[in-house]
């Protein structure tokens, strides 16, 4: 049986290192992009809506005057269009005749962050929302 030459072995090792490096780069970069809206959600929204979006953040004590929206409730979330979600994030609950306990975030979040949040909420509810 023919043994691989030193050159062939060296080439294989270099290839293995390159493949490993590319895989590490891919796997470490992907979550960073994918998790950005999630990071924004967890930082700003989770205090009322909970880290998983069930409406159970630490602010929601028994005295909390309203129930923050449970984003996992696809039936309710389907009643809202993406534009509705964007409006309520930017201008607060009263902009859609809901509670002012949802404050306006228009001076806090960038347009990109708001768009990312809308997509993230659709990921949580696994629903497309009202179309048109």
């Amino acid at each position, binding site marked *: 049986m023919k043994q691989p030459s030193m050159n062939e072995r060296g080439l294989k090792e270099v290839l293995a290192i390159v493949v490993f490096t590319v895989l590490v780069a891919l796997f470490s970069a992907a979550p960073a992009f994918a998790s950005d809206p999630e990071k924004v959600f967890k930082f700003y929204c989770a205090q*009322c809506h909970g880290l998983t979006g069930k409406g159970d*953040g630490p602010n929601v004590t028994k005295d909390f005057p309203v129930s923050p929206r449970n984003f996992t409730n696809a039936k309710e979330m389907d009643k809202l269009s993406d534009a509705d979600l964007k409006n309520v994030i930017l201008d607060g609950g009263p902009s859609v005749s809901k509670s002012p306990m949802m404050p306006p975030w228009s*001076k806090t979040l960038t347009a990109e962050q708001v768009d990312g949040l809308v997509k993230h909420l659709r990921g949580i509810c696994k629903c497309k929302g009202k179309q048109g």
Partner: protein
Amino acid sequence: MRLSITAIFSAALLLGAASSNPAGAAAGKDVFEAKGCGGCHYTEGPAREKTIDDQLAKKGPELWYAGSKFQKDWLGKWLADPKPIRPMKFNNLMQENTGGHPKLAGGDVAAVTDFLMGLTSTEVAAGKVKPKKNPKGRQIFTKKMPCSGCHQYLGRKKKLSGGRSGPSLVEAGLRLNPDWILAYLQKPKVFKPVKMMPVFAGLLSDKDMLNVARYVANFKPKKKK
């Protein structure tokens, strides 16, 4: 006689008002560094946080404007006997804050208080906010832009009310400089460029922010008659 008592009283007030005690502040800085306080609190401005990650990397609140933010009496007492201000741990929505901040003792208390009270911001205008009962401020705080959603306070009949993600504002009038409360609302990017609290500047008028600052600065125990 009355004149001399007044003069002595005025001199004492002036001495008290001069919060910086250079010798004490220098000693306090040494204590602050020796005890490793800088591991959790940075003391040189301006604010460094630019991203959510920057904010989440911090282990404790920044103190570079502590002298503009806190009241000296409160700060000294707190350093000697720290009680949790936040219901939840810093930068954490899952874990209760059970305390455990290191205590200072003896001369270290006054020295570190002097050091921190010397860390001021020129962005806080003095003498703008007089604490007082303020129905308009109360209406904004509890209903219009409900600060109460995230901050605890004593509501009607002294009932502990409000949310838990932000620092408690119970007796905030003893802890916070009223003028800082207003400056914090008006210039959020100066003090905390990245924070969980919404920016209200541009949404509330200056007058409404003044009303809120007056209302919050009045959160203190009633004086016994």
